[in-house]
């Protein structure tokens, strides 16, 4: 036998041993606990039946065989506690909230469901409970919730359920590290049922589970769902530890699921499954106790009666399809006039105000005296030590923490040190921040703000110079704002601070050092459309002959050289600078384009499928026969060689070259 097969065999052997020696549960547990486990089982069975009948759609991951894990842990929590769970969450949900009726409605797609039918099986929310599909995704969110509890409560805790398969996801270790480092009351519960979908634990998990917890200095507890008395005691012990010590703990529970991963996908050895089925404590109880059989029938009848009584009301498109983006651009305008301070100073002041208002600011190397990689947060940690947190290098982890804090009502700013590292937080952005508002049927709002400096022109090379906004605009419910030194960001950031939903703030490394725009005698600079609107720089000495749309640092570069652009290229530019990229205020761009009939879009990233393409498409929908051209970075990773980098990235200089050739293309 190979070492691997040996390991496989020995793991199963261990489980078999536990199951074989299992004592009778009636003696070990309270009837309430048993009843709850039966209820969970019956609800799961009902779901499978409804699926077979075609009365349910989507998918379902039943926890039949694992019920006691849910009852032992979630069933022993308090209402003020929070739970994060995964795809196999029904047991946890019923044990924590007791709302089995709302769960059934949810899976039946009814408006009376827990999430109005939007989330269904895997995406549940109720105060004190949330679940999401992707493995491990909610773990750092749980850490954020626990952090909130650490600050605001002396007793509440957060419990995060994972499977042994989740031990493969990196974000788990970020969460463990953060939880242990910060000492937050987060209980990690790993339900080890030997199989992740079709993969045996021995093929997915190296080393030991205990070793993982101990690596982070987290106390390790373990139990199994056959020795139920010991399990309930251990669970209580772990919960009490976390609750009183206000520190993290790890509880590993061995168990076995009797049903397939979802429906029908089961390649496990039939004799193995039947072995555990025969020794399942709940089945054994029901089979030899007529009174418990009665209870089971009662529960079954109650559920059946409930199912058939539900009014079939579903959510409508009009009720669902709206979001939290600030799409209202009021028809007002104001001249732009700035103090003579640097952009970084203005940002520092604005973020200081936000933190003073109660927001968190978390990120790497934020603490004084360092004050952040670009010094944007200098002084903040001294002024507000309880809310400005320096973190380890865990972008996904701190993104999740920010989301968790925001979910609890604490607005949170999360700094990603370089825009390039935004790649690490895509799952948190797309699976969590973007989705909670809708997925949980408008029961939540997540005022989290991610901020990062994008942009090159410093020779930092391919992974420290990128502008990735193209990949962020259009993410559901995420407002994307690009700040520019043409305008003091204070008003925009004050408005960001008021937004209920998630926001992504793009700053720029080069722009940090610039003095705010001080005006230009040949142009009128005004901002229209409110704080998320558009800066308009209109030429005073001539009718504009071309509309240029740009944002961020390049917009400032162009603004500084409008006169030179005119002299060198003969084009008179009207410069439009949208501050919010998504949602985007089209009206002033349209107005300018209607006059000049020619628009050049300048974006920091490459033009393919980018910002310019979107605006051009929106213009084409309402105004035909415009000449539209896009200018951006060359579609290759940004080189470090300074002159080459300058040639490949958009700038006023490149715009001039571009406009000179446009002239030859025919006016």
């Amino acid at each position, binding site marked *: 036998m190979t070492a691997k097969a040996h390991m496989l065999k020995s793991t199963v052997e261990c489980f078999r041993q536990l199951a074989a020696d299992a004592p009778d549960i009636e003696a070990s547990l309270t009837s309430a606990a048993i009843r709850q486990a039966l209820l969970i089982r019956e609800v799961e069975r009902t779901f499978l039946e409804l699926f077979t009948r075609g009365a349910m759609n989507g998918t379902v991951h039943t926890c039949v065989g694992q019920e006691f894990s849910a009852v032992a842990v979630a069933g022993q929590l308090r209402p003020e506690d929070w739970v994060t769970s995964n795809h196999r969450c029904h047991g946890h949900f019923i044990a924590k909230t007791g709302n089995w009726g709302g769960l059934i409605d949810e899976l039946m797609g009814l408006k009376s469901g827990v999430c109005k039918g939007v989330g269904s099986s895997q995406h549940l929310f109720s105060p004190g409970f949330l679940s999401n599909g992707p493995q491990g995704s909610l773990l750092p969110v749980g850490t954020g919730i626990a952090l909130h509890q650490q600050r605001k409560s002396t007793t509440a805790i957060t419990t995060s359920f994972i499977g042994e398969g989740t031990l493969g996801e990196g974000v788990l270790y970020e969460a463990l590290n953060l939880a242990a480092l910060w000492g937050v009351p987060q209980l990690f519960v790993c339900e080890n049922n030997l199989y992740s979908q079709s993969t045996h634990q021995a093929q997915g998990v190296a080393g030991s589970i205990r070793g993982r917890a101990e690596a982070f200095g987290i106390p390790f507890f373990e139990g199994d769902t056959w020795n139920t008395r010991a399990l309930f005691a251990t669970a209580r012990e772990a919960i009490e530890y976390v609750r009183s010590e206000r520190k993290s703990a790890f509880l590993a529970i061995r168990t076995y699921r009797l049903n397939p991963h979802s429906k029908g996908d089961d390649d496990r050895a039939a004799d193995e499954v039947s072995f555990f089925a025969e020794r399942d404590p709940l089945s054994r109880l029901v089979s030899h106790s007529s009174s418990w059989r009665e209870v089971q029938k009662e529960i079954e009848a109650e559920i059946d009666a409930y199912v058939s009584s539900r009014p079939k009301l579903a959510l409508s498109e009009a009720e669902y399809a709206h979001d939290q983006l600030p799409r209202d651009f009021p*028809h*007002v*305008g104001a*001249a732009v006039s700035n103090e003579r301070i640097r952009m970084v100073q203005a940002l520092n002041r604005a973020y200081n105000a936000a933190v003073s208002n109660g927001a968190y600011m978390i990120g790497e190397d934020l603490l004084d005296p360092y004050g952040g990689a670009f010094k944007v947060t200098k002084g903040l940690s001294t002024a507000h030590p309880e809310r400005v947190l320096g973190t380890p290098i865990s972008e996904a982890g701190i993104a999740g923490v920010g989301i968790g804090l925001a979910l609890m009502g604490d607005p949170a700013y999360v700094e990603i040190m370089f825009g390039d590292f935004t790649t690490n937080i895509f799952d948190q952005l797309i699976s969590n921040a973007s989705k909670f508002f809708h997925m949980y049927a408008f029961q939540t709002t997540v005022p989290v703000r991610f901020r990062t400096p994008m942009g090159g022109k410093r020779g930092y090379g391919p992974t420290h110079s990128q502008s990735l906004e193209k990949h962020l605009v259009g993410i559901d419910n995420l407002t994307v704002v690009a700040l520019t030194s043409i305008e003091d960001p204070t008003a925009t950031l004050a408005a960001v601070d008021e937004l209920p939903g998630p926001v992504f703030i793009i700053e720029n490394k080069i722009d940090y050092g610039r003095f705010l725009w001080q005006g230009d005698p*040949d142009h*009128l600079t*005004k901002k*229209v*459309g409110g704080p998320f609107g558009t800066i308009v720089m*209109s*030429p*005073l*000495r*001539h*009718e504009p*002959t071309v509309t240029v749309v740009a944002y961020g640092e390049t917009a400032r570069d162009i603004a500084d050289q409008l*006169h030179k652009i*005119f*002299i*060198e*290229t*003969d*084009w*008179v530019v009207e410069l439009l600078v949208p501050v919010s990229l998504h949602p985007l205020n089209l009206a*002033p761009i349209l107005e300018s384009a209607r*006059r000049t009939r020619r628009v050049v879009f300048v974006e920091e990233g490459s033009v393919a499928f980018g910002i310019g393409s979107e605006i051009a498409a929106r213009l084409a929908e309402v105004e035909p026969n415009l000449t539209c051209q896009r200018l951006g970075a060359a579609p290759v990773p940004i080189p470090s060689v300074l002159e080459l980098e300058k040639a490949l990235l958009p700038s006023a200089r490149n715009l001039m070259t571009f406009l000179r050739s446009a*002239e030859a293309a*025919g*006016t």
Partner: protein
Amino acid sequence: MSTLRVTVDRDNVNDEFVVVRKLHKRNGESVQAEELVLEIESSKTLSEVYAPESGLLRVHSSEGDEIAVGGLLFEITTESPEATDAADIVRPVTPPSEEAQLKASRTATELAQRLDVALRDIPSRGWITSADVLAAAKPAAARVHGDAAAIRDASTSVPAHGTVPKAPFRAVKTSLLKRKEARILAGANSSGSTSMIGTELSLGGSARLVPPPFLFQDSISDLVTFEAARLLKRYPDLNACYLDERTNGYFAEVNFGISFDAGHNLKVLALRNADQLSLIEVQAGFDRLLQLYESDAPIADELLHCSTVTLSDLSRSGATFMLPLLNASQSLIIGITRRDSDRFGLHASFDHRVSEGLQVARFLDELRGRLQSHYRPAPTNRPGALRCSVCDQTLEAEIETGVRGLLRIACADGSDGYLCRNCFEGW
């Protein structure tokens, strides 16, 4: 703030649109009530449009633009002091102070030098583009609409029927009246809008003041070319072409196309800039072109395709009447026939969409007058003036010797002649 919209009234039931002919004020200027803003042309008339109120003018049309009836001509806005509406943050239209420098783009500066335009003379708010320079450089007589490219040496508009004249030309919009006329003609004449007017040149036996080279012994092609080329400068409609329903192209040069036809090989070769050649140069040019035609050498594309007007000389063919066909991208062709030794026919076929009959008639009349000026006055037909070229005997002397005269003989070419009875040799 209030905005007053001034639109095109339907005062003429036949028109669907009007053409902006002249702008008297510019976009962004302030106007007074009753001040003349612009002139518009309909198919009937040219009208003036005044500002109904004082205020700030917003006009986005250019000269030559067509505006539909009911469409917007311009707007007058009156500003209120507490404007907060975004649209009200209007650019102040004050021109730069005297100390503020005029700034011209690089290309504008070069262009101004090339076209000899002073930047100070160009109306502006401070910045001057090359389009501004071009607009200021236009000759007053020309009514070129907006497009600076029309002045450069390139044909930019493609006529609706697909042929593009190769000679440099300037596109000019035709008046509404003329367009209407063209439509009417096209409707009635399925063979096109070509018409022909002819006239007769009587030489009355006189000879040229300056004896021509052999090639032109009994031809007037050189004279016609020489005189017509010059005359065309005063009849630009005849040195032009129809481009499309709305545009004619006026040629910058007069390139006379001479038809050469030795049977089955008709070619029209151009005598370039014929209006600038002396008669001797015209004659030499003909000679050169004839040699080129008769040789087998390939002929430069330029000579074949850049004619702006054509000449077809059939005076040696015996034809007394012809209806020459217009060449594509031209509006005039002159045909020459010969009635007899004394009389030539001049036949001008022309494009009625570009010019009209009276104009062509006048042209021919003037041309005839000029041609006649090349001939010595016709001798008076007094018999006494006849003198024998051999024996010098005059008819008067003959009559004095008795009532005799000259013998009438039939000449070899069938015409009548007189033989001296004295010497039987000369007449």
